[in-house]
C-alpha cells in the first residue's frame, strides 16, 4: 500500500484566500483512507488475551466479530480500546482490569487521529448539542421523557450520565447516537455507523449504514436514495462496488454507483475523504428556511456553521460557538466552495454541464421553498407570537403542529428529494404536501388564530411577491379535477373571444367523456390560450 500524498492546486487559489487554505489543507491529506500514525508498539495490551479467552465463551458472537476484524489482524485487542484510568468518570473494575464500557471517539482517536479531528465539530458530532434545548418541547411535553431515550437520543445521541455507583444511567445508555456526549467530554459515536465489534469498512460504506437515522418522514434519505437513479443502479450493480477496497476512491476503485458515503464523505478523484459529513453541504436543509452556510473552522479545532450573510467572519476574529464559548476563526469556507467540493465528486461520473444543471435545479427548489412557503410561514408565525395570538408554549395550539410539519417533515422531504434526485420525494412526498399543507391547513388555521387581524398578518404577507397571485384568478378553470365551466355564449365579433370559446367548448366536450379525453382537451385549450 502506498501512502501517496496528492499535491493539488486549483486555479482560483492564486491569492491565498481562507477557503483556499481549507481546501488545499484538505487536499493535502492523502486521498487514501487515513492511515493510523501511531506506532504498533502502542497497542497489543498484554491483558487482551485474557479478555478474548473468556469472552469467546461468555459472549461468543461479540468475540467472533472482533476475530473477523481488521483490528484483530493488526493485533489490536479489547483492552487497547476499552482500557481506562481509575480516575476516568466512567472507569469500572472488571476481572482485575480498569476499563470503560464506552469507547468514545476520543478513544478511537488515539489511533485514528484524522477521523477524530474530522468528525469533531461536524454536524454529526453536534447532533445532540444542536437540538438539546429544543427536545423537551416535543419529547417531554407532547410525549414523555421515555421517548427521548428510545427515540430522539438513539439518532442524535444522549448525554451519557455516569451514576454515583459507577453504572451508566439506563436513561442515557445504551446509546450509539451520532452526537452522543460521552463521559470523557468528547462528542459523537463511531459505532453509530461502524458496527461494533467488526468495524468493517465495507459495512460503513453501505447506504444501510445511514438508514437507522436517515429514514422516515423528516429525513427520508434512505427512501430518496433508493428511489433515485443512483440507488437504482447501486442495487443492480452492488457486486461491482468494491466496498472492501482500502481507499475506495470513486472513479478509481469503483465506478458502478455512488452511496451516501461517496458524495458526503468519500474520496473521489482529487477530493480527499473526510469524516466531517456536512462539509460538502452548501445549504441547510432541515431548517424552517434554508440558508447557504459558511463552514467556520476554529483554531481550537472546533467548527461552526454560519448563515451566509455576505460577510464571512475574519480570520483571527473571536466568534461565539453553539455552546456559548468563543473561539478564534482559523478558516472560513463559503458555501460556493463547499458546493464546489461536492460538485467535484459528481464530476467523476458526470459532465460539468450536467452537474451544474442538476445543482441549478436543486437550488431552484430550495429557493422556491424558501420564498413561497418557508419565509411567509415563518413570518406569519412570528407575527402571531409577537402579537400574543399564539402562546409562547410550543405545540399547545394545532397551528404549531401544522407549521412544524410544514418545514420539518414535508418541507425537509422536498428539499432532500431535490438534493438527491428522487422526483417522488421532491414532489409527491415533498413539495406537493408542502403546498397542500400551506394552503389547506396552515393558512386557514393561521387566519382563524389571527381573527380580526388576519388580513394584516396573513393576507398582507401572501400579497408580497407573485408566488400566491394565482389564488386571485379564481375564474381560471383547469380540467385536473374534472370540472370546466360550460361555454359562455360569446358575441362572435372579437377574434380573441372566439378562440377562448372554442377552447372551452372543446374541453367541456372532453369532460363529458373519460378523464384522458378531458386532459387532452385541456392541453389543447391551454395551447389556445397561450
Amino acid at each position, binding site marked *: 500500500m502506498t501512502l501517496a500524498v496528492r499535491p493539488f492546486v486549483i486555479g482560483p487559489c492564486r491569492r491565498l484566500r481562507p477557503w483556499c487554505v481549507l481546501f488545499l489543507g484538505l487536499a493535502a491529506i492523502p486521498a487514501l483512507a487515513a492511515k493510523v500514525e501511531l506506532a504498533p508498539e502502542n497497542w497489543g495490551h498484554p491483558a487482551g488475551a485474557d479478555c478474548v479467552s473468556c469472552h469467546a*465463551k461468555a459472549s461468543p458472537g461479540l468475540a467472533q466479530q472482533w476475530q473477523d476484524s481488521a483490528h484483530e489482524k493488526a493485533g489490536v485487542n479489547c483492552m487497547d480500546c476499552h482500557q481506562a484510568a*481509575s480516575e476516568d468518570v466512567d472507569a469500572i473494575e472488571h476481572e482485575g482490569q*480498569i476499563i470503560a464500557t464506552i469507547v468514545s471517539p476520543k478513544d478511537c482517536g488515539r489511533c485514528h487521529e484524522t477521523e477524530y479531528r474530522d468528525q469533531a465539530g461536524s454536524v454529526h458530532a453536534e447532533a445532540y448539542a444542536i437540538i438539546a434545548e429544543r427536545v423537551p418541547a416535543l419529547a417531554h411535553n407532547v410525549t414523555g421523557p421515555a421517548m427521548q431515550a428510545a427515540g430522539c437520543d438513539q439518532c442524535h445521541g444522549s448525554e451519557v450520565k455516569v*451514576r*454515583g*455507583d459507577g*453504572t451508566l444511567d439506563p436513561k442515557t445508555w445504551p446509546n450509539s447516537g451520532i452526537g452522543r456526549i460521552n463521559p470523557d467530554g468528547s462528542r459523537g459515536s463511531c459505532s453509530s455507523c461502524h458496527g461494533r465489534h467488526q468495524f468493517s469498512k465495507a459495512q460503513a460504506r453501505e447506504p444501510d449504514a445511514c438508514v437507522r437515522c436517515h429514514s422516515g418522514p423528516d429525513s427520508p434519505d434512505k427512501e430518496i436514495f433508493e428511489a433515485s437513479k443512483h440507488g437504482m443502479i447501486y442495487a443492480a450493480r452492488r457486486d461491482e462496488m468494491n466496498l472492501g477496497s482500502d481507499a475506495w476512491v470513486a472513479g478509481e476503485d469503483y465506478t458502478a454507483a455512488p452511496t451516501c458515503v461517496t458524495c458526503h464523505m468519500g474520496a473521489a478523484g482529487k477530493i480527499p475523504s473526510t469524516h466531517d459529513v456536512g462539509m460538502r453541504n452548501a445549504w441547510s436543509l432541515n431548517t424552517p428556511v434554508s440558508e447557504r452556510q459558511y463552514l467556520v473552522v476554529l483554531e481550537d479545532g472546533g467548527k461552526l456553521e454560519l448563515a451566509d450573510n455576505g460577510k464571512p467572519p475574519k480570520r483571527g476574529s473571536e466568534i461565539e460557538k453553539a455552546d456559548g464559548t468563543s473561539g478564534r476563526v482559523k478558516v472560513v469556507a463559503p458555501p460556493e466552495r463547499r458546493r464546489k467540493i461536492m460538485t467535484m465528486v459528481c464530476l467523476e461520473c458526470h459532465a460539468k454541464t450536467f452537474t451544474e444543471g442538476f445543482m441549478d435545479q436543486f437550488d431552484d427548489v430550495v429557493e422556491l421553498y424558501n420564498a413561497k412557503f418557508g419565509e411567509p410561514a415563518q413570518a406569519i408565525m412570528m407575527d402571531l407570537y409577537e402579537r400574543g395570538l399564539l402562546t409562547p408554549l410550543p405545540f399547545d395550539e394545532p397551528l404549531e403542529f401544522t407549521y412544524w410539519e410544514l418545514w420539518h417533515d414535508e418541507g425537509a422531504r422536498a428539499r432532500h428529494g431535490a438534493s438527491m434526485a428522487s422526483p417522488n420525494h421532491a414532489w409527491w412526498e415533498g413539495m406537493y404536501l408542502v403546498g397542500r399543507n400551506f394552503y389547506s391547513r396552515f393558512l386557514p388555521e393561521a387566519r382563524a388564530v389571527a381573527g380580526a387581524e388576519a388580513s394584516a398578518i396573513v393576507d398582507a404577507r401572501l400579497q408580497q411577491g407573485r408566488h400566491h397571485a394565482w389564488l386571485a384568478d379564481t375564474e381560471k378553470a383547469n380540467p385536473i379535477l374534472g370540472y370546466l365551466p360550460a361555454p359562455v355564449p360569446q358575441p362572435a365579433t372579437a377574434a380573441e373571444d372566439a378562440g377562448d370559446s372554442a377552447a372551452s367548448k372543446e374541453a367541456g366536450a372532453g369532460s363529458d367523456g373519460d378523464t384522458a379525453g378531458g386532459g387532452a382537451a385541456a392541453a389543447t385549450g391551454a395551447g389556445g390560450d397561450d
Partner: protein
Amino acid sequence: MIRFRAPLFITRHVLFALVAGGLGGIVFMFFLLEFDHFTSSNEFCTTCHSMTYAEQAYQQSVHYNSPSGVRATCGDCHVSEGLIMATYDHTVGIKDLIKQLFGPEYDDPAVNLLHLPEAAFAARDWFRKRDSATCKRCHTLEAIQGTRANTAAIHQEETEGKTCIDCHYNIVHRKVPSRETFKREAWNAMVEQELGLPSGTAAKILAGD
C-alpha cells in the same frame, strides 16, 4: 486382672472439678453453637435498624429468593464456618455494635448510604482474605454449570488465581464501585440527589457536622 488406679494427685476435688469443668465446657460449646447460630440469623442482624438497609437489596437478590428454595442468611455469607472461626468473627463483629452505639447515626438513611462504600470494601477484603470460603459452603467450582452454554467452561478455564469475590461482587447488596474506581464526590452527589438533600450536605454529614 489389671487394676486401674488413678494417680495420686487426682483427688476427689480434682475429679469433681474435671467433671464439672468438662460438663461446663460442653454446655459452653453448645451455648456457643447456638449463640453463633442465633447471631448469624437474619432476624438477629436486622435487630439494628441500620442493617435493614442492607436487607432491602438482599431481599431482591437471588440469594434470598432462589427458585430452589435455598436461602443464604446473613451469617451464611458473612460468618465463617466452624465454631472457632464463627466465634472469632462474632467477637470481631462486636466493633460493629460499638460503632452502632457510639459511632455515627447509621440508622439515618443518608449516613448509612454515605458509609456504605467503606463497608463494602471491607466486606470484599474479608471475602478475599478467606478465599471466598463462605461462598464455597454452597458453591463448588467444579460443579458450576450455569444456565448459559459456556458458564461451566468459564469456571473451569478462566478462574485460575481468582477467587469468587474477584468477579462476583455487587450481586446481593446495593451496587458499590470497586475501591480503585470509587469516586467519593460522585457517590455523595448520588446520595444527595436520591434523598433530596441540598448539595454539600453529604460532605458535612461525613465530616460529622
